């Protein structure tokens, strides 16, 4: 059942990407759009090649990736711990679940200047900002995961004489994991977007800073090169994460 429809869906998706690139190629070739707004595909491809073959891009890539990883690590650790402890009591869950859910809806980007004020123009402000934003989906899904553990499994385990740790390892965690991994994936994408966005707003270096700089210097080929690079990298990372998530959710 899934094989043929999966193939059809994949074909349409690939066709969609091909059409986007085709339209891009068409409108620049016919000069329908000014090159300042949209440089030709070929020029962008050459600029990407140039950026990476001369090695000038790697420092920015390394810095941004490291910032994302640090922000994400903080978000995951804090989110898992907070989420787990909140679910240890029904009262705490009733208090904090809606609170965290509501805080998540606040556009935290508005407070970005404060992050720069507190943590400086270096990676610190981006780490703090990304970690805070990425914290919410991890915490919320951890709460959802641990609260939905069904009582019949807990009772069965208790009747077999399970220790508190045994209950945690063999019942709570496997039961909550499928929901938690979804939170982990969403959090990663949020950390990534937050760090790049933060870098565009205010930073000394990094991919976001390079994009902002290229725009300011009216160098659209460079700007689009970075954007295309980010789009490709994010797509690959998301595919990898979805695969991992699918594996975990299967069981």
């Amino acid at each position, binding site marked *: 059942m899934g094989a043929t429809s999966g193939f059809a869906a994949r074909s349409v998706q690939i066709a969609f990407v091909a059409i986007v690139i085709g339209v891009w190629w068409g409108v620049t070739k016919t000069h329908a759009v000014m090159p300042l707004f949209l440089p030709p595909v070929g020029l962008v491809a050459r600029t990407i090649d140039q950026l990476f073959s001369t090695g000038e891009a790697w420092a920015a890539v390394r810095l941004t990736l490291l910032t994302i990883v640090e922000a994400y690590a903080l978000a995951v650790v804090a989110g898992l711990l907070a989420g787990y402890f909140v679910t240890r009591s029904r009262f705490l869950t009733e208090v904090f679940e809606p609170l965290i859910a509501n805080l998540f809806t606040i556009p935290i980007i508005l407070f970005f200047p404060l992050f720069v004020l507190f943590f400086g123009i270096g990676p610190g402000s981006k780490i703090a900002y990304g970690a805070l934003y990425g914290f919410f989906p991890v915490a919320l899904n951890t709460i959802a995961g641990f609260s939905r553990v069904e009582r019949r499994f807990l*009772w069965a385990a*208790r009747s077999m*004489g399970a220790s508190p740790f045994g209950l945690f390892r*063999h019942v709570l965690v*496997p039961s909550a994991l499928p929901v938690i991994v979804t939170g982990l994936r969403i959090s990663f994408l949020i950390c990534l977007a937050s760090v790049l966005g933060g870098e565009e707003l205010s930073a000394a270096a990094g991919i976001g800073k390079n994009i902002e700089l290229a725009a300011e210097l009216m160098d659209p080929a460079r700007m689009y090169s970075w954007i295309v690079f980010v789009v490709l990298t994010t797509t690959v990372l998301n595919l990898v994460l979805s695969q991992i998530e699918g594996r975990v959710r299967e069981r």
Partner: protein
Amino acid sequence: MTVAFDQARAPAATERPVAISVKGVTKRFGEGTGLGVMALSEVTLDIRRGEFVCLLGPSGCGKSTLLNIIGGLLPQTAGTVEVAGKKVAAPLPNDMAFVFQESTLFPWYTVTENFRVALKFQGVPHAEWEARTQEALAAVGMVQFAGHYPDQLSVGMRQRVNLARGIAMGTDIILMDEPFAALDEQTRMVLGEDLSSLLAKTGKTIVFVTHSLAEAVFLSDRIVVLTARPAAIKKIVRVEEPHPRSPDFMLEPRFSELRNELYELLRDEIRKTMAMQGGGAPGGGG
């Protein structure tokens, strides 16, 4: 399956030692909230070793509550439960195993892993896991499905495995909470036969919660008929038929007589329960 198989032990049923002793057990839910619900009222019952006892009552009457109190999963409000001479205050995994509905197999583990984790919880040494798993799976004819996940099996197969998991615990007592409720009638009957022959072979004590009259008559040595909530013992009906029981037992006139007797006893209680539920009383699993 011949009726003569186990004639020797049937008459001795009343003289065998007491395995489970329930004395004056009362249970009230929601104590101190002003919305307390009385679930059990002064239940006193002795269950003898090797006996198959059914707790039968209208749904929601508190029969599962009684079973959970016997198993140490729920604290009682008053009264005592003794198992193997010990007062029950928490689960006693080495004396009593629970078999719930088939959906309590952990879906994230394979059949084998389900057994391993159960034996690990129970504190059984690692070296024994494999043999006990194999033996229990063989007893229900499920060895070839050891590597399957529960959701890859049919409901009936899952319940066989679940039953085997209870057996693998190696306890003298098995407490069963409507284990066949989700099964179709035919599967139910086959598993009922399996259970009857298991009892004949191993001499385990089984306490079985059900609301099926036929199931109660087919399986039980004694049927404890409970009233509508708060559950109290209305009558205890004895079924004189040795295990293992053959499906032919269901065709005998006294099978229908017993079932009719149970229905007589239950009819008013079922009406009372329906009236309570109509009045907005909280339902629940019994």
